[in-house]
């Protein structure tokens, strides 16, 4: 059985987005963990599907709802604070 190990990182300098490079690395880890959480949720959901008598349409709706909830969760932890700051500032500017 042949094993192929592909190159994992792209050639070329990776840009820095934060003053402290540790934050760049930390964000990558958070997103990788979020991805694994989603994979686990999908596995749990698959078990529910196997044991459920619900229709395909109901289960599809459930998946869509789970996906929306999941992204709200990710957004809350990862981007919402920055968004709130901008929206508050926008509201303030408009009120003036």
């Amino acid at each position, binding site marked *: 059985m042949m094993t192929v190990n*592909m190159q994992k990182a792209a050639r070329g300098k990776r840009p820095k987005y934060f003053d402290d490079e540790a934050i760049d690395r930390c964000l990558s880890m958070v997103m990788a963990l979020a991805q694994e959480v989603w994979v686990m949720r999908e596995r749990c959901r698959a078990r529910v599907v196997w044991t459920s008598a619900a229709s395909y349409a109901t289960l599809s709706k459930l998946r869509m709802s789970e996906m929306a909830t999941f992204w709200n969760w990710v957004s809350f932890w990862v981007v919402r604070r920055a968004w709130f700051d901008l929206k508050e500032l926008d509201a303030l500017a408009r009120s003036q």
Partner: protein
Amino acid sequence: MCAQVATEPQRNHAILPQSLSEETSRQDFVRAFKLHLAHNVAPGNRLAYELHAAPEFEKSHGQRPADYAQVREAMRDEPFYNFWSAMQRNSQEMMWRACQLSVERQAETLIQRYRETDAGHGTLTLDPELPLPNYHKAVDIHCMPGGYHTEFAPDDVANGAVYDRAVWVYVMGRMGPLNDDMGQSTVNFIKTVHPEFRPSRILEFGCGVGHSTLPYADAYPDAEFHAIDVAAPVLRYAHARAESLGKAVHFSQQNAEATNFPDQSFDLIVSHIFVHETSHKAMQNVMRETYRLLKPGGLVVHLETPPYSQMKDPFDAFILDWDTYNNNEPYWQGSHEIDAGEMAREFGFDTESTFEVMQPSAFEQADAHRTRTFQGGDFAGAGVWYLWGMRKPADVEV
């Protein structure tokens, strides 16, 4: 979220890597991540620009940013923009890895399928001695580890397979089940503007895995169709894919700057998102080679995203320019400043025939889910493609 975009699954063919459920979940995550960034996070950049960056720039410079370079200067230290950029870069890196996993697992099978390809519709000619251009070796374009060219095993097709699946994830299914929207859209343009045009020989530069290639085989079934690329792994994959789908294409490993085709070999030369992956010097050579290869009156059409000069708001050009600095696309900016008319004049084409058009995407089904903007990670989001090209004068001596 991703299910709202992919209206039907990617169409299967003999060499398409198959994903296990966990691999599909990882790919779905990236697709939803990109869509979430495009729809829910990216609009914050405009807000940050209008509320913080532009007023600050105006205070220090006495005017609002006038072009995309000044917008970049204004946005350089904007926390929200840097945060979005970091997320965007991560989504790109995660996309490649998510697609690599299933390819690594099936590499042996995929290589075997390539080796067994013998449907006999088209051909494949590789040239192991072909020098790889520096613009491919220096960085891995669009952050794909190994680029199009790296071989991880004998007769390797791995990065062809990764690219095929990753494009589907990247554009969130909006380029059709065969990822062929760019080819379909260009064919639509040619058929509409030149209904009488019946090319007998067609050439595609930088064909990659052949996503945009196959629509021409359908549109002009009597034509002899050649497609070239510098990278063997994607060509092997393209050949196996085209054969599996029953299309007659002659693939060969060649550099578009200097091919081995005789003078005046083709009626039509096309490329799709090829120009921005070359270099300024290479494009000069490509234009010379195009002129040499076209028959008198022959047509060349390149598809790209729009040049910055066509964007009314410098902020939009700045967002489109993100790839230059963040996605290993060193010639992205230069290619978006190409002047088609100037190219025609410089290389002897018929200047009257030069055109620049915004061509609607061929796939209307994904229309409702587009963002209407060109932005990193949302390549097919705007629903239109920029086409530019020209004709070789018909009165050139043969």
